[in-house]
């Protein structure tokens, strides 16, 4: 009977993903909790959960966890994205077992104390709201009427073995991470999940921002993580807005002087991804005219794309996927793209299968891009732009 139960758990839990890096000086232990489509109230609860989940857990105070991570010069960190919560800690190789135990306890034994939740409710709304952060997260959470039990309920709803992806990276032996995790969590059983109320309304959006800068966004259509055209969509985004040879840089910044930073990014959502073309600008035209003008300029630029633009986009894609360029559309961290660190490589090894059903193989993605011709490149970008919805935040708000 016990064996049968263990087998059932093993079938339900996602496999532990390992990233072996013998040269690394620390081990990255991560849990990625998938977020479904959430109501605005639950999204606010998720924001609080991310703040408080590692504050105090059974067996480990946050200071104990801080001290263990500090031995590796690292820290426990929790990041919220629209489609997941990422919990991460770096530990010394000899502390791997305790690192695994800490992540397990955070997932199963978080106390979510009122103190931590109240602190988060007080601090979160006033935390750094730079222009770019606001552009990426152009909405605010409503914490009124939030109760500890709401956050706790969400915690139990999403922290289930079948909804969590574990990744361990660093100087570990093959199978070591899996073995440690499995041994520790063999008693972790899926529980009956209460159904959440269906509420697909949107979070309140920012309508204006203090200062002279407005934020203009052209948001393309959402597509599924397993969309067969993912490589093509990504290449189109790179053509439009990654690098200084991109259409946004040349047509909006260099030709028009509308902005300093303008990027086309791949933004995760609960149901897949959305392409987002973002530019903050103080140009007197104002956001509505800028959005219109940006679309026209970009359509004009891409209609003139040649094989040279395709070659540049493919070169840039190679730089992003294989050479870890900073200027990347892969915005899977709250305010910036993923990077080449062991933490982010470990994250991608678990996140990409969760998101797309495929292993994270940058060379494979690049191989798919190589077969894309100019016509497809232009058509994908054009299709994205033509139906993109403008989202505007006016300048001069309070």
């Amino acid at each position: 009977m016990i064996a049968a139960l263990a087998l059932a758990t093993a079938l339900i839990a996602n496999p532990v993903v390992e990233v072996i890096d013998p040269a690394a000086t620390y081990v990255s232990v991560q849990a990625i909790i998938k977020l479904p489509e959430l109501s605005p109230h639950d999204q606010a609860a998720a924001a609080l959960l991310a703040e408080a989940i590692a504050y105090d857990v059974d067996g480990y105070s946050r200071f104990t966890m801080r001290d263990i991570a500090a031995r590796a010069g690292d820290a426990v960190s929790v990041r919220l994205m629209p489609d997941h919560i990422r919990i991460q800690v770096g530990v010394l190789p000899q502390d791997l077992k305790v690192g695994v135990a800490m992540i397990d306890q955070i997932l199963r034994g978080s106390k979510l104390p009122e103190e931590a939740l109240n602190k988060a409710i007080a601090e979160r709304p006033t935390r750094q709201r730079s222009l770019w952060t606001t552009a990426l997260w152009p909405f605010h959470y409503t914490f009124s009427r939030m109760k500890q039990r709401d956050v706790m309920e969400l915690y139990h709803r999403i922290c289930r073995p079948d909804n969590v992806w574990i990744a361990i990276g660093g100087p570990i032996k093959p199978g070591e991470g899996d073995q440690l995790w499995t041994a520790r969590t063999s008693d972790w059983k899926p529980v009956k999940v209460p159904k959440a109320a269906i509420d697909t309304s949107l979070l309140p959006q920012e309508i204006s921002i203090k200062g002279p800068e407005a934020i203009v966004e052209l948001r393309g259509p959402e597509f599924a993580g397993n969309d067969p055209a993912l490589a093509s969509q990504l290449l189109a985004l790179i053509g439009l807005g990654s690098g200084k040879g991109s259409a946004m840089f040349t047509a909006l910044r260099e030709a028009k002087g509308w902005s300093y930073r303008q990027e086309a990014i791949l933004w995760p959502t609960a149901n897949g991804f959305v392409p987002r073309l973002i530019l903050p600008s103080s140009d007197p035209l104002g956001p509505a005219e800028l959005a219109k003008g940006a679309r026209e300029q970009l359509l004009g630029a891409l209609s003139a794309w040649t094989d040279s633009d395709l070659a540049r986009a493919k070169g840039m894609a190679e730089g992003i996927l294989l050479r870890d360029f900073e200027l990347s559309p892969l915005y899977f961290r709250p305010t910036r793209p993923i990077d080449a660190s062991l933490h982010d490589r470990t994250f991608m090894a678990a996140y990409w299968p969760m998101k797309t059903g495929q292993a994270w193989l940058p060379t494979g993605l690049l191989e798919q891009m190589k077969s894309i011709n100019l016509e497809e490149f232009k058509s994908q970008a054009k299709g994205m732009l033509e139906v993109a919805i403008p989202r505007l935040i006016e300048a001069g708000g309070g």
Partner: protein
Amino acid sequence: MILPLLVAVLTSALTQEPPRLRTILDNGAVILVEPMPKEKTVSVQLWASSRYVPETEATHGYRHLLEHLIVTGPDHDLDRKLETAACFLKARTYRDATQMELTVGADQLPLAFETLRTILRKPSFTQEQIDNEVKVMREELALLDEPAKLSSAAWRAAYEESGLDPLGTFDSMYRATPGKLDEIVGKQFAADGLALVIAGPVDLDKATAMGRDLLGPRAKGSRKPVLPIREGHPGRVADAEGSGEARAALVPGFNSPQTVAALAAALAIASEFQNAFVTYTPTAQKGLVLVGRTESSTGLGAFIDSFKSPASLYNVGRQLAHEWIQRQLRTSSGVGYLRGLLLAQGVANRPEMLLEQLDTLTPAQFEAGMRALMKDNAVTAVASE
């Protein structure tokens, strides 16, 4: 017995260091090559010291403006060529030097050097080009995040004119003319202010020879370096832009025990909070180590001023500071940054000096580092929101 032991220790220290070669050319330019065979890419970083062109109220932001104008190349085609070849160029202006970094593949060093050669050719600008770029830079300044804004305010409060933010302001940069920028070019790219670092999967001798070809023909600066005298003082600035609060310890050069102690203390304090930042850009001159938070009510200052047991954070601070330095030295880009920034300020400067200070940091020094962040000794920058 003592001597053999010493030799053993020295041998051990030497074997732990990767091979690297620093070459000082006759004209004063310095080249450092660090082969890192396991790295995927080569980082080629040219650093131009600000020693002949320190920020003043009259030229505030000109180096930054110049950086924008020269990195595109005279035909505005450098980036396109690089990106097509899966390479990348980025540039950044710091107080002590301007950085130009090329990321290229192991077999693409000639492309990196061709790009740098183009950038170093004497540029010429029109007023229209300058005006257009200043317009774009106004947008850049608006994008500064809270830590950068708090840092800028703290520097200004601590060091006044010699603490001016190298990014400049619109009010100063819009007065730039082609003539004024030409003057900056001549001073900033004098050979004895240049440091070139090549790190990654490269051949030590070949890369050094290429660096020599690039920088060897350049003329030495004809003027005496104008090092700003940074005399800092504690204080408080309550109208920083943005939100949040930062405490900044006034520290001597990067290789002093006080600086390392303040860095370790700042990192330890930051670890007490969920969302805190630490900023320190290594400088051979006096500088600031900042710790801050960006919430409107941070609790940071009260925590620092009332903290009673600094010894309890000694190990945490040391470990975090050690890794803060070491992580940069594990990547080709980080090596280029840290070594280049320090070399541009003096050919004898090495990041290992920071590590050495850290290795011998005592609890008493760490406590002094904590005290340097207390309000009577530090600069407090509080945002006006």
